[in-house]
């Protein structure tokens, strides 16, 4: 497979993730779409690492994984705590900074 096949697939996944972030109203689905976008980027990192024959890309994927895990932890904590105070998690209703 040429590199461009992996890159095109990665671009398609990333665009689908952007669509999810923009159109869905549930913050959890937005969250999953962000994970999708991160995975698309990781995919192109690993593809580049294979075709340039270095391990740099894989190492970056590893660091991205670390940051993504931190993001998941804090993000889900925020979503649950918003739900506890507002009893709803619709993003259209979260329009005030002061809870």
């Amino acid at each position, binding site marked *: *497979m*040429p*590199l*461009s096949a*992996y*890159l*095109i*697939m990665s*671009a*398609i*996944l*990333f*665009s*689908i*993730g*952007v*669509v*999810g972030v*923009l*159109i*869905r*109203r*549930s913050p*959890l*689905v937005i969250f*999953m*779409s962000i*994970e*999708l976008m991160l*995975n698309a980027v*990781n*995919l192109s990192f*690993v*593809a*580049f*690492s*294979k*075709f*340039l*024959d270095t*391990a*740099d890309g*894989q*190492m970056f994927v*590893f660091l991205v*994984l*670390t*940051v993504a*895990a*931190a993001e*998941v*932890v*804090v993000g889900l*904590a925020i*979503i*649950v705590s918003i739900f506890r105070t507002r*009893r*709803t998690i*619709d993003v*259209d209703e979260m329009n005030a900074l002061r809870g």
Partner: protein
Amino acid sequence: MDLATLIFWIIAVILVGSALMVVGLRNIVHSAVALILLFAMAAGIYVLLDAEFIAIVQILIYAGAVTILILFALMLTRITGQQSRTNPTNKQWWIALVICTLLGVSIIYAATTSPHAVATVGSDSGQLPAGINNVVRIGQLLYSPTQYSFVLPFEIASLVLLVAIIGAIVIGRED
């Protein structure tokens, strides 16, 4: 068409299909299950690209832990009897679709027509010397004290994890 190409196409089709399911399905639980499929298929692509360590980590962290956590959060934020009352998308969905199609097309255009395309470098010829596998190469980049190493980013990653722990406790605990 050889076997690697066939596997790539199978995985790519499932990958894009499950991504569409994550974004498009009305029931959020179904989205989360499609997300597990997506992570597993991405791990398949990593194996195809000779990145076994990343594939294992992907299964362990993403497919194993992150989706379970998302399902937990789903359980905690569900109001019984209020599900599926409204439509799951907002009003400007068609503008978003147009923008994202433009975005995807431009990324694909850039990736395929770039003068820096590296499609022919390395490809399948890169046979590693015996005993040097993936994990060792990642480890040498991340940990060894040569000039071109990422020791400091690795230590800072622990700082990020520390922030995550403290953030989870401060924000997530109910008192």
